């Protein structure tokens, strides 16, 4: 099982490049795709989900080129887009039955699958209510269910936890981890904690290009010895932000506790254990500095 993204670029209009020479080879596991807003994550997801074509480069699924044979992937694809709608007059069962028919699943096995999925996403009690009355989080769970309808080998989820309450978010993270064993899962998000909890690999994307592709451990190693906890008076915070890259701040009775990302320790700062958010910010900052230079 292999998804190969080979030098893929996507241009909108005359000269707006959403993706540029993006390459990645994926095998079973959860890939966390991280990047700031407008980085090109959703464009990449759309290309991988066969919604839009790449302007340049190619994507292959187990050797089959998606440009000429998109159905090679579509039969084993589960896709949860960032923005999607539902038919308000249908209930959850009817909507999933409809999408099962569109995906070519037979009615009997689809019905059994739908029952299980609705239970999995905690919608069994409201299964017969029209979707028009669902909240945003509930619609998102219907979206998660439809992505799993055809037992996908490639599961692409774009900002899947948006609108979910904390409990449902934890459930979904666990679900992703469990599903990843024999399939490729691509989790696109800007919520670092979602990636931290589930991803076996991380790809950082910025301005349409791949900044880094590594395991979480490898990314964390890059910032080892560069994260400091620094307690300063709140009046000095603005000056500190101008001088250092600060990943977070917490106000306490003794002042502001700032996490600083730098090779040279600020005065009186103490070393801190790096987390993925530190690594993410450090990589993006290094990339921007490099690009500017």
């Amino acid at each position, binding site marked *: 099982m292999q998804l190969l993204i080979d030098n893929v670029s996507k241009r909108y209009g005359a000269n707006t490049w959403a993706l540029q020479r993006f390459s990645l080879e994926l095998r079973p596991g959860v890939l966390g795709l991280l990047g700031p807003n407008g980085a090109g994550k959703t464009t990449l997801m759309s290309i991988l989900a*066969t919604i839009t074509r790449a302007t340049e480069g190619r994507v292959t699924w187990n050797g089959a080129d998606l440009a000429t044979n998109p159905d090679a992937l579509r039969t084993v694809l589960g896709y949860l*887009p960032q923005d999607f709608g539902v038919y308000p007059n249908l209930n959850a069962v009817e909507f999933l*039955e409809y999408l099962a028919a569109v995906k*070519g699943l*037979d009615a009997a096995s689809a019905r059994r699958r739908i029952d299980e999925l609705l239970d999995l996403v*905690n919608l069994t009690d409201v299964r017969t*209510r029209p979707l028009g*009355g669902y909240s945003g989080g509930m619609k998102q769970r219907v979206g998660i269910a439809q992505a799993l309808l055809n*037992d996908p080998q490639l599961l692409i989820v774009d900002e899947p936890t948006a609108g979910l309450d904390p409990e449902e978010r934890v459930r979904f993270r666990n679900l992703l981890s469990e599903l990843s064993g024999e399939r490729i899962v691509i989790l696109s998000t800007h919520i670092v904690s979602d990636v931290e909890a589930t991803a076996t690999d991380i790809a950082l994307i910025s301005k349409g290009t791949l900044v880094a592709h590594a395991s979480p451990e490898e990314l964390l190693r890059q910032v080892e010895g560069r994260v400091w906890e620094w307690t300063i008076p709140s009046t000095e915070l603005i000056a500190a932000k101008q001088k250092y890259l600060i990943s977070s701040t917490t106000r306490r009775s003794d002042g502001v506790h700032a996490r600083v990302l730098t090779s040279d320790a600020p005065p009186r700062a103490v070393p801190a254990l790096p987390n993925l958010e530190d690594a993410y910010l450090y990589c993006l900052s290094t990339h921007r500095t490099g690009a500017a230079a």
Partner: protein
Amino acid sequence: MNSAHVLHRMVQADFLERARRYSFLLTLAGALYLGYGVATEKVWVVIGNGYRGVYNSAWIGAVMAVCCSTFLSLVGFYVVKNSVQCDTETRVGQILAATPMRKSFYAVAKMVSNFAVLASMVIVLMLAAVAMQLLHAEIKQVSIWKLWAPFLLIALPAMAITAALAVLFEMLPLLNGGVGNVVYFFVWTLGLAGSIQLGATEPTGIQLLFRSTRSALLKIDPNNKDSFSLTIGGTRAVRTFLWNGFDWTAPIVLSRVMWMYVAVGIALLASLFFHRFDPASELWRKKKRAELVIAPANGEMPQRPSTGSRSVQTAQLTPLAATRNSRFLQLVLCELRLMLKGQRWWWYAGAAGLLIGTLVSPSADAREGCLIAAWFWPILIWSQMGAREARYATQSLIFSSPRALPRQLPAIWMAGVLVAALAGAGAGVRLLMSDDWHGLLGWIAGALFIPSLALALGVWSGRSKAFEALYTVWWYIGPLHHTAGWDFMGTTPASSSSMAYILAAAALLATAYIGRRVRLGYA
């Protein structure tokens, strides 16, 4: 910030948003063609005993302005009836609702922005009128006032009324959707017919032109009869007379300006029905329809209590069978359910009544009338074909499925044909029983043509409005008024175009396929 500035910014944003759409350009092209038709005598006015005016500035300006106020008041309505809907869909409305803006101000602002869109078309036509006169007129000497005054005093007030009616229809709960699109056509038709009663003050300016030209004609032909027709393809004028334009007296000018105030009044009336983007108004309707338990403050529906162990439950999914077949029929039935789900009881009662009417009516005329009505009844079901995916943003879910194009599109079409066949089943059975093969061919042509037209328009426009407007007009001209060649149901004895409509259905289906193919990244 003062109101004028807010109004200016709102109108500007609305105008730019809509002027950059293809529908605006298409309508503008249509309006220009209409103007070209006036100047080249493809559209003409015949007065009294076969008279028309000599093509000078006054005549070209007046006829083009009257064409604007009649035809553009129909098409233009469908172009601009989306400003409130746009604010709802983009959720800009919720941001506006949280500002101190009053409902009346919003309604008037929407009316003004609708007017700006329609007026821009009129202005383009005014400029085109100069070119038309220079290129095609019998008297090429241009008098700007005589050419442009009818646009300013006849067409613009009519556009203001159209703009205001669009706001009213959008704000009235029952008319803001497809029903309103259908109803407007009949309002427009009745309005044109009824405007005769209003005399010279009616909004389209037809009566004004009629009365002014009649006075001029009586001077040269005292036996001239009282008649006036604005024609596309009717009887041509056989003689000409020189008409030097309207006498714009103060009462006439005031009566035209009065329509601008009436338009503002209609917009203010509309504001009384405006929901101010309150989601409760939408939820109320859904609750009525489905007896929903509406969510409490956080918007969540009641759920069963969660437990800690449940929150980390493992995924227990039965593996699917290895083989997957096409299941096309299953997909057709799902599309059919999607079309019919959500219809109210009275819709089914009406459809059943018409079905029974076509089956048991002893009179052929009554059966025919029932069929004509039966194939109008599901208009709002057909109008969703091909547009539903865009309307409900389900494209990415559906188009990432295997063989989405060759399976789903034909399935929608088949479901649409089934709706037509079911709605007109009574007539079909009667035709079959009476061995009326010619009639049956017409019935088949209708059952195939209607969903094909709906699908093609839905796919290409991405909206239901195009079919709702075009089908209503076509149905009114063709089947209802038995205009030969336009009757796609084959109910006009003189019409023998069933095969042509079957071929047209095939062409439209192919057009829909191409349209969907163009929009998809992949086949």
